[in-house]
């Protein structure tokens, strides 16, 4: 994080954005110097026009003309150079500031927990990171100096005009109060409209996105007309919102624009009168005329700038909401030390540097052995605290042993394992990893060594090799690894071995590009079983201490599954393996089997014990077995 999202929480949007800009403020100072140079030049050039008229044309001193012309050109060159300079600096300033802001958003996003993602649409988060930040960038690198420019030019030009002729200047100044009134009206009305447009666009985005993601279902039900109707509603709404903004502009823009024109009218009418009356020279009137665009421009501009300002505010509010979202899962500040203390050093059996001081984050060196204990754990989702998902779960799995979990759909199996890698915190009780509360472990350590192969397989748009090595970032000799180089630094042979263990090597090699095959977003190009095996290989490549397979082989045929299980048995000596399954065959070799029902453990024991107990496990077992043996009696 570049900036602690907690600071300036109650301040205005400009105060809030400031810390992101701080490192680039020197650029702004530089830009300010150039800005002043530019405006000084801009304000002086029309004076030369006046001098040409008064001294050369009226006064007849033709000899001075080349000098004036040269001066005018020279000043222009200085002016445009200065302007180019400050524009570039401000652009760089805006880019760098937004760079920090988006980076923070991205980091924040990865800190948020499952609860947040369960309730927030991808499209919304997407807008936070693209269009909203763009509104802020636009404000920082363009709108701010445009506002300054408008104010300086307006005030400057008016001042010079007062110096030339106070009567005419005063007449022009009379227009200003009206500008403020109109601007305020425009501003306050545009504000909610921008919010509405943004929301409408987000709706439209989400709808289209869902349609694209769910294209198989849409087609299977031939629901294209229905989807189009839904789309039309959103599409119409989005247009309506845009029109509402146009109508608001219609209410104010002509008046603002008309005020600009009035300045010319006053100059022509009143200025002309003053010259005729002999109270003003023609040259001064010409100068006045050249200054007109300097006060006319800002007046016309301010309506648009107000719109931009509102857009900036709307975006700020949304981004601030994202950044101040509190994850429920937060790492203890002294997590690494607390683990060492609590486990009396046993948890850090593989700590590289024994004497390392606790001030350095020693997190990556902590190695989990794999002992898991649930100490009377209960859990309910924060948004539905009255429905217990887990109720008084209590068991112990020593390091290196195998746990099997069986239970009905929705019994809480997936939630139970999510607690081990601390995607949720228990509502009551404790989850102990190597005897240390999961809440006391550094999150990175915990999650990199507890690996859940989830029901929903997500593959990145990358090569198969890159996907498998995604988890291998922590593998020996590879620090940067991950996906940046499609597995550079991760041994090819290692990846193939992991794929073989997961029973994926065969089908991967049958693909046109083998391990170099790119699997699309969400890996749709592969069958369910293939995706499951890839995600298992990915988890294995991570070399976790605790491997959790959440119904990982449900779409894999039984022969392959048996093969995978044999590989797993051969491979590991010290991994704790937790298997969630519906098939008895997947869990029966476990050292401990839990049968879950409505969030409670209703039976526990080994396969033999449970079968002997003639309870629920036995009945599932006999159904799965009976289904086969029963039919087998037919021959």
């Amino acid at each position: 994080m570049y900036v602690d999202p907690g600071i300036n929480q109650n301040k205005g949007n400009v105060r809030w954005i400031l810390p992101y800009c701080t490192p680039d403020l020197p650029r702004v100072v530089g830009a300010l110097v150039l800005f002043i140079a530019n405006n000084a030049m801009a304000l002086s050039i029309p004076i030369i026009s006046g001098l040409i008229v008064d001294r050369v044309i009226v006064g007849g001193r033709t000899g001075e003309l080349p000098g004036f012309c040269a001066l005018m050109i020279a000043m222009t060159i200085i002016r445009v150079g200065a302007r180019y300079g400050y524009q570039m600096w401000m652009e760089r300033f805006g880019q760098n500031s937004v760079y920090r802001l988006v980076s923070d958003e991205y980091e924040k996003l990865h800190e948020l927990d499952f609860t947040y993602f369960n309730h927030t649409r991808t499209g919304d988060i997407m807008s936070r990171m693209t269009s909203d930040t763009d509104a802020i960038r636009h404000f920082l690198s363009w709108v701010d100096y445009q506002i300054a420019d408008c104010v300086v030019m307006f005030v400057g030009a008016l001042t010079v005009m007062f110096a030339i002729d106070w009567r005419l200047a005063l007449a022009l100044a009379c227009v200003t109060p009206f500008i403020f009134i109109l601007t305020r009206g425009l501003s306050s009305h545009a504000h909610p409209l921008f919010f509405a447009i943004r929301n409408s666009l987000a709706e439209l985005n989400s709808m289209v996105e869902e349609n694209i993601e769910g294209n198989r279902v849409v087609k299977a039900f031939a629901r294209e007309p229905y989807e189009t109707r839904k789309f039309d509603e959103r599409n119409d709404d989005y247009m309506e919102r845009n029109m509402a903004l146009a109508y608001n502009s219609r209410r104010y823009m002509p008046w603002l624009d008309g005020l600009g024109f009035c300045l010319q009218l006053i100059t022509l009418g009143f200025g002309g009168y003053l010259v005729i009356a002999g109270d003003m020279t023609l040259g001064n009137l010409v100068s006045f005329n050249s200054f007109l665009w300097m006060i006319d421009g800002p007046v016309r501009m301010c309506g648009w700038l107000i719109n931009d300002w509102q857009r900036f505010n709307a975006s700020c509010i949304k981004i601030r909401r994202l950044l101040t979202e509190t994850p429920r899962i937060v790492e203890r500040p002294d997590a690494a030390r607390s683990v060492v203390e609590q486990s009396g050093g046993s948890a850090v059996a593989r700590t590289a540097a024994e004497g390392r001081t606790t001030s350095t984050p020693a997190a990556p060196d902590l190695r989990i052995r794999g002992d898991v204990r649930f100490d009377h754990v209960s859990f309910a989702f924060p948004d539905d605290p009255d429905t217990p998902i887990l109720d008084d779960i209590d068991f112990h799995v020593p390091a290196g042993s195998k746990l099997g979990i069986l239970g009905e759909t929705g019994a809480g199996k997936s939630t139970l394992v999510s607690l081990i890698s601390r995607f949720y915190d228990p509502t009551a009780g404790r989850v102990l990893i190597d005897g240390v509360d999961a809440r006391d472990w550094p999150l990175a350590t915990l999650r990199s060594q507890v690996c859940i192969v989830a029901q929903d397989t997500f593959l990145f748009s990358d090569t198969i090799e890159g996907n498998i090595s995604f988890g291998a970032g922590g593998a020996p000799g590879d620090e940067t690894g991950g996906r940046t180089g499609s597995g550079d630094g991760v041994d090819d042979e290692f990846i193939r071995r992991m794929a073989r263990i997961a029973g994926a090597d065969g089908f991967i090699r049958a693909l046109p590009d083998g391990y170099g095959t790119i699997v699309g977003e969400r890996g749709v190009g592969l069958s369910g079983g293939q995706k499951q095996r890839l995600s298992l290989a990915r988890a294995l490549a991570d070399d976790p201490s605790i491997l959790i397979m959440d119904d990982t082989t449900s779409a894999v045929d039984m022969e392959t599954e048996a093969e995978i299980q044999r590989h797993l048995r051969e491979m590991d000596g010290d991994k704790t393996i937790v298997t969630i399954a519906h098939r008895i065959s997947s869990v029966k070799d476990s050292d401990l089997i839990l049968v879950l029902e409505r969030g409670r453990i209703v039976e526990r024991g080994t396969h033999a014990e449970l079968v002997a107990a003639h309870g629920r496990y036995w009945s599932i077992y006999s159904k799965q077995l009976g289904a086969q043996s029963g039919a087998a009696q037919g021959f």
Partner: protein
Amino acid sequence: MAQRNTFREDEELEESINLHDIARVGVYLKPYLPAVARILAVVVSMSCITVSVPYLTKIMIDDAIPNKDLGRLGLLAGVLACLIVVYELALRYRTVAITRVGQLMLKDMRRDLFTHIQTLPFSYFDSRPHGKILIRVVNYVNTLSDTLSSGLISVFADVFTFLVTLVVMFAIDWRLALWSLVLFPALIAWVRVLQYFQRRAYQKLSNKQSNLNAFIHESIAGVKTTQTFAREKAQFMTFQQQQDDVRTAWMAAKHIEFLMWPGVQTISVMTIAFIYFVGITGFGGVDVTTGMLIAFVGYANNFWNPVINIGNFYNQLVTCSAYLERIFETLDVRPEIEDRPGARDLPEIRGRVDFNDVVFRYEDGGRNILNLVDFHVEPGRTIALVGPTGAGKTTIVSLLSRFYDVTEGSVEIDGHDVRDVTLASLRRQMGVMLQDTFIFSGNVRENIRYGRLDATDEEIEAAARAVHAHEFIMELPDGYDTVVEERGSTLSAGQRQLIAFARVLLADPRILILDEATSNIDTRTEEALQAGLAHLLKGRTSFVIAHRLSTIENADEILYIDHGRIVEHGSHAELLRAKGSYWRLYESQYAAIRA
């Protein structure tokens, strides 16, 4: 299969304007031509007013002031006041009218894209990141908004203003007018050279932004995976790299953009200085009054704006051309599967299914996925497909609902080749339950209703009861009205399958296809489910793909598929007696549980 289209790769972009694409935009403009004509008329009159203001000043300086004619001055002021009122009324009209035409066009375009995408095959969605498709439908179209409506119209106004200004200047004094055009070639050269570079810079930027957006989108979609592997740092590094690329491209583009104005402004001031010089010294036989000189300077001040604006518009058009090309490219993707000309509606299905020597491969010259698959099913029978993963089971059922077309042979339902009937009538009567269940955001009831849009609440509940989803639904906080989030992430995989199951049943399909539909459902629920399904399956031809043999042994016929061929077929008992592949599979499962 998946093409190389990841977030790291740039998409190709156009170098110049594709006139063909621009012409196609005309199609969208056509319905609004009368409105556009009205707007143009208004805009032209606004230009005339803008041009006449310096001329009023000229009259004042040359006529009213030297003659000390206050009446004439008052008249001039009165004329200007009237012009202002007309101008602002015109502006009032223009503000809304332009937005409306532009928005209507965009709306039409978005709708066309969306409806078109509905017709595209799975392979289209499978072969590219979804973020990139999304951007085409929404973002690219929005980018066109300014160029197509206000841009087009203001450039027209600019051209008009430019011409009128020229005419007025020549009318005042043709020699001075010629002299003030001396630097015009330099201006054109400057604008053209810069705009060439600007265009390239913006195209590069657009590529990088597109990549970044795709990456962000994927990061959000895959955030749980990233967290599971604690790979936040590596992802963040990639993100920073992508951001860096965008920033570099951005600054390069801005650098060129910001160079434009200094050149133009310098040339403009030099021209003004030159006009003063020529006008005052009478150089080259020029003889003008002070008023004319001032008016000329006034015109020269604004003379260049149209030129820059036209240049900018040209650039916008090139950028748009790039976007348009992608949009039209999407519109031009031919759906692989389309209704044949003269395709008829499939009459109500009785349920006979024939696969006649079907051969299938994804692309010409590729590997055969299915090789001479030939089987025939009587109405109402249940067929089970078993075999190793990747053997071609899913492909067989996909051919039935015509998600792909056979390469050789034919697939017939009740004697109608599936290629001869309309897709809608075919798929409406088929119930497909896929491995990937997709839950829409909305409540549970709406998700089930997706199967049949006019179903009553009672029918929905009945369907849910039949698949034993009713129990868990009632336990949700708001029962059937419980809002499920995007992709049903608050439900377990098994629960999602049950909802999808109810959805299929509600559709009351004549042919039912269950593709691994029960893999995430526990044994007890599955058993109950099957009991409920038994009578629902009655009278429907159904295809079941499953790995769990308990699910399939009651099928009327079992096809054992391997390497795209039917290796064995027959009833459960027959196949066990044959002691072939099916028997070995059965034995291994039995052994796995028993051992």
